[in-house]
């Protein structure tokens, strides 16, 4: 639940939504810090993250420890979730609060991968994109940080302002996939 006087980007979008074997729901927006190591400082950043039990992630990697999580988020950047950045980190990296910049959604269910295949131009076979992987890509027209939690659960992060149209695109894909599933 959002604290009083605050809004979640998914407010008013009618979530959760269920279509066929898929559910789209909103995630709460806890702390999120963009960590961008200065050139060549990934190792030093990893050391600075050690007190959290984390390291600086390799491309596509998700590292989690005791509730805190760090997710690769593009060239020379990662997002640190649900933890405050250790002070030493700012000597080696630009650290930027982005907790409110993202809409965070969860798509789960047996058809989640099939739904995303309508919108995400990546190979999402479990062999190519297994649980614990992240990718910076597109959801239709929308910028996307995609994290696979389990075989059938994907975290979908797009810009806060675009939450409404991203949910619309996902809903349309869910409807189509549910109709196909009902056919067979």
């Amino acid at each position, binding site marked *: 639940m959002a604290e009083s006087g605050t809004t979640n980007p998914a407010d008013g979008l009618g979530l959760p939504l269920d279509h066929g074997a898929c559910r789209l729901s909103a995630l709460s927006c806890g702390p999120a810090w963009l960590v961008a190591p200065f050139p060549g400082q990934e190792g030093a950043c990893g050391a600075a993250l050690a007190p959290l039990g984390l390291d600086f992630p390799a491309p596509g990697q998700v590292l989690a420890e005791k509730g805190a999580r760090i997710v690769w988020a593009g060239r020379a950047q990662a997002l640190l979730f649900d933890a405050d950045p250790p002070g030493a980190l700012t000597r080696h990296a630009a650290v930027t609060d982005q907790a409110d910049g993202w809409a965070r959604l969860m798509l789960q269910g047996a058809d989640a991968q099939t739904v995303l295949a*309508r919108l995400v131009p990546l190979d999402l076979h479990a062999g190519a994109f297994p649980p614990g992987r992240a990718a910076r890509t597109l959801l239709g027209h929308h910028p996307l940080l995609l994290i696979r939690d389990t075989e059938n659960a994907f975290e979908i992060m797009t810009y806060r302002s675009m939450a409404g*149209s991203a949910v619309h695109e996902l809903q349309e894909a869910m409807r189509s996939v549910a109709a196909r599933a009902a056919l067979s």
Partner: protein
Amino acid sequence: MTGGWRIPGRGAEIDRSRRRRFTFGGRVLEGFAGDTLASALMGAGVRVLGRSFKYHRPRGVMTAGSEEPNALVAVLEGTQRTPNVRATVQEVYKGLNAQPQNCWPGPHLDALAINDFLHPFLGAGFYYKTFMWPRRFWERVYEPVIRRAAGLGSLSGRADTGRYEKAYAFCDLLVIGAGPAGLMAALRAGRAGADVILAEEDRAVGGRLLADLPAIGGQDTHGWLAALLAELRALPNVRIMTRTTVTGAHDGGTYGAIERVGLHLADPGDLPRECFWRIVARRTILAAGALERPIAHPANDRPGVMLASAMPAYVNRWGVAPARRVVIFGNNDSALDTARGLTAAGIEVAAYVDPRDGISVTEEFPVYRAAQVVGTRGRLGLREVAVRHAGGISVVQADGLGLSGGWNPTLHLSCHMNGRPEWNETIAAFVPRPGMVPGLEAAGAAAGRFSTSDCLADGARAAAVALADLGIKVADIDLPLAEDRPYGIAPFWAVDAGGRAWLDFANDVTTKDVGQAAREGFASVEHMKRYTTQGMAPDQGKNSNVAALAVLADATGQGIAATGTTTFRPPYVPVSIAALGAGGQGAGFAPQRLTVSDATSRAMGAPMIEAGLWYRPSYFPRAEETTWRQACDREVTMVRGAVGVCDVSTLGKIDVQGPDAGQFLDLLYTNTMSSLKPGRVRYGLMLREDGHVMEDGTCARLDAARFLITTTTAAAAQVMRHMDFVQQAFCAQQRFRFASVTEHWAQFAIAGPRARDLLNGVLDEPVTGESLPFMGCQPVRVGAIAGRLFRISFSGEAGYEIAVPARHGAALFARLVRAAEALGGGAYGLEALNVLRIEKGFVTHAEIHGRVTAFDIGMQRMISPAKDCIGKAASQRPGLMEETREQLVGLRPVDPQDEIAAGAHLYAADAPASAAFGQGYVTSACYSPTLQGWLGLGFLTNGRARHGEVLRVHDGLRGRKVMARVCDPVFHDPEGRAMRG
């Protein structure tokens, strides 16, 4: 067969217990579940399905596949009308409503059939020669008439509201076509554990097996297919996609494919009509089979004339007789097999006609060897076939004529990356060369191997090759026994017997047209195609290309191999634009970006206006206001007199951090940012590499190693991209990084003489003019919320911008608006914001539109002489700082109530309004309630030296001419007392 056209005991794909009522051209007819529209119409005895394109000749079904050139119909669903649907592909469903095309009032009686009598005048090149004179007739007479008569099918004219889909798929091996070769390839690769996609255009897998029903591995076709399908379906790594046509081969192993998803259902519900797939395959096997080609003989286009191979397809797949008494005219062994198969199925073969001399005549039907079909009769359906043989001409009574001029491998996809196929004399057809599309190999009939046994073996072989290439181990596979008859053919393309012999049925191109093209100098195959339009109809020449170029080769005396083919391009079959654009209808065209204040603004009645992808409030109408101008004027006056609140969250915000951040910003901006003190803000200008102005905005230094720059809403992404480029290209080793924080911070402008009063009602610790001077910034707290406060102004009033994390934005905006209203102010929108900045002469992208320099906008002094910056050297090129350049000026109409419009041009009072006399143009204009008159900003040749001159502001679009005086672009408070005070 008694009475009807259905054949008892045949038709594996129809379910006679499920009748399907449909209409064709208003007639209610009945077919069965599993029928195509073509088979259902055939079953109902309908032979004429439409009229031909040019001569409006009655036409019937020609093929049993997607290559159909004749049987194109319109399908109506509600208000939607889909033209050029191939009846051979469209499946029948309850309530299907189809209509014949290209005929009025109907297919049996058609007004434009007059064209057929005019055919001597309508040959190739007719338009080019006939409609040349008189010249002025082209636009007024010829073109409108031709337009009305031209074109295949018609659209509803309404927006397509159907559901469509796009999707991505990935695999190790894409197998295109599920005939014997494709099935064996998929099976072998599937057993080896590879990710396989088997794409089949038809609703059923089997390819030619379904029509020819050969025994395989000691079983009947259907038994063998059922067992194989069961195994394939049980393999989780094999995905069988039926009703899916691969339409294009593109770079990097990417293939386009169109899937018919809901087009065969009476009530598709939420199903998309079609899905356009992008399939990325590491290896591909093209097992698309082969297409039979007709023979051009006089009057070979009557309903009842079809491809020989289509006949057993209708008999064996849908249990329908294409005719009661047929003649087969072929030049190859497959045609003879077809005649035998039809006889076995109980269809009377009245004659087998073959130009070859050496063939056997001991058949169950009359065989005419060394013979040709030289004519047909039957206006709305074939009645007689004239056969010329050694003994003269015999007339054979027949209602069906099957043509087989041999088989063309379906190699189109292999040519999509500009490869050219090679001519194979043995089968008299083009075959793909290896390597035409990287990673793709043709197998089976698509590679020119025609016996069932060869196809099975070749599919299995190709799978092994592809998987070995990928390092996937494949096991041996037992090849089932199947027919392995040799395929003999003697090339034969056209009967020389006078009369019109059709090559391209869809576009009404005859052998005469091709001959004429050659005679008139259009002897290259590409020229012939364009001159005659052969191959340019929806079937894209699938039925006619090879025969047409053979006829051309004959006319020019060159061989077929030397003549070559035209270029095969994607898509292989027609693809609806709606499927390619799936998801892009209406608001799906682009993402919508909404601010945190969006709901509040809409609740206040504000009309929203698009700014890039963002939606921003135009103005906030109040009860007594009936026009936008009233609201806008009130909001401007409110800001100048009290206080206004505006959501400026859409401006780009980029956080730049690191010890070298200042150095980077100095390179980026024309002015120096590294000297900025923490807690201070500076206005800055960025140039493109070509020296023109890219962007203006502010840069705040939050602390020693942290800057926050703001960009205009429109250019935020461009600036971010530019910064990425500059960082990667010139500063890759410097210690700084930047990140967009546009979405994290909600930011509101508070402007007006009472701005500070409002602000101090919100902040935990009040600010004073001294504690936060103009162009200062500081952290603030709003209750428990940590925010940032900037003292900057885009309105020219005492102004602040307060930023809080976005989750708090909606609440803060509502609170600020309430507080402003209590102080006699309120929210203001984009219209007022624009008026406020024009009054102050502040530029936006209306002025810095990409063609102006810092010199032009009067900011040359902002390019620091003490350092370099991106674009500085280029900005010093000759001509970019001349007095003759158009410079930013203000414009005030001589009569203040005369309206100036943006986009108008500037002329001397009495000069004509033409480009040669143009002296400049207006970029922004507004009515200023502050100055009680119209204002304009614009560019004028040598404008800064011409303040005081009177010019004509000519708005040619609206026909308005206004006299205006040139002035300084800062109209209001030029000393800036209000915002500094």
